[in-house]
C-alpha cells in the first residue's frame, strides 16, 4: 500500500496544517463567546491530524503523532474535566464556582448583545479546554489506531 500522496498534496498540507490548528484553537478558546466550543474546536484540530495522516501516511506516525502520548493526553483531558466538575462539590457537583465571583475568570458580562469579554463565564473556558484536549487527542487516537489496524490488513 502506498502510504504517501503526491508532492502537491504534501505541500498544500504543510501550508494549511498550521492554519487549521490556529482556527481550531480559536474555536476552543472562544467557546463561551462565539459559536463553537471544546467539542467543535477539538474536532477541527483532529481534522488537521486526519489531513496529515492522509497526506503522509504512516510516516506521520514517526515522531509527530505518538499514539501513547495521545492516549495519555486524552485521559488527562478527561480527568481534568472531571476535576473541574468536582471544584463545585462544596455546593453541588458541576456547580460553576467561578462564575460571577469577580476573580480572574469571574468577570460579569453586560446584559444583552455585547462584544464579549474573554475572561468571563467562570469554569466554562477551562472546561472547553479540557474537552478540546480530550476530543482532539481522542479522535487522533482513533484515526491512528484505525490506520495501523487497517494497514495490517494490507500486509497480511
Amino acid at each position, binding site marked *: 500500500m502506498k502510504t504517501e500522496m503526491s508532492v502537491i498534496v504534501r505541500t498544500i498540507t504543510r501550508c494549511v496544517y498550521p492554519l487549521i490548528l490556529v482556527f481550531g484553537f480559536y474555536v476552543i478558546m472562544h467557546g463561551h463567546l462565539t459559536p463553537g466550543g471544546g*467539542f467543535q474546536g477539538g474536532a477541527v484540530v483532529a481534522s488537521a491530524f486526519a489531513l496529515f495522516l492522509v497526506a503522509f501516511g504512516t510516516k506521520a506516525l514517526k515522531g509527530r503523532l505518538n499514539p501513547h502520548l495521545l492516549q495519555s493526553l486524552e485521559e488527562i483531558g478527561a480527568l481534568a474535566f472531571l476535576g473541574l466538575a468536582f471544584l463545585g462539590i462544596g455546593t453541588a457537583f458541576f456547580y460553576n464556582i467561578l462564575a460571577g465571583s469577580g476573580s480572574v475568570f469571574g468577570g460579569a*458580562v453586560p446584559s*444583552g*448583545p455585547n462584544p*464579549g469579554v474573554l475572561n468571563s463565564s467562570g469554569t466554562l473556558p477551562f472546561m472547553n479546554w479540557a474537552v478540546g484536549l480530550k476530543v482532539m487527542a481522542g479522535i487522533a487516537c482513533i484515526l491512528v489506531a*484505525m490506520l495501523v*489496524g487497517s494497514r*495490517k490488513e494490507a500486509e497480511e
Partner: protein
Amino acid sequence: MSAVGSLPFVVSMLLVILGLYALLFKRNLIKMVIGVSLIETGVNLFLVTLGYRTAGVAPIYTYAPATTVRVLPTPQALTLTSIVIGLATTALLLSFAVLIYRHYGTLDVSKIKELRG
C-alpha cells in the same frame, strides 16, 4: 406563519426510515454502518428542528442582532451531545467491521454466515 406545518419533522423521519432500510436490508457491513449513521443524522435533524422558532436568531449574545426572538438552546445542546455519541458509535462499529474483515476476508453478511458454517 407556519406555511410548512410539520413538514421538517416528516423529512427528518424520512431520513430515519432510509437509514432503517439500509440497516435492515443491506448485506454489506459498511452499508449497514452507513444506515446507522443515517438514522443518527435523522434523529439529530429532528432534535434541531424542534428548537426552531420562526424568524429566530442563534442564542448567542456576542455582536447579536437587535431582536428578541431567539431559537431554543436546549435542542442544540442535546444535538451536540448526540452527534458526539454518534461519532463514537460509528467509529466503534467501523473498527468491528475491520476486525470482521480481518477474520473472514469479506464484508458480506451472507458470506460470513457461510464461512462460519
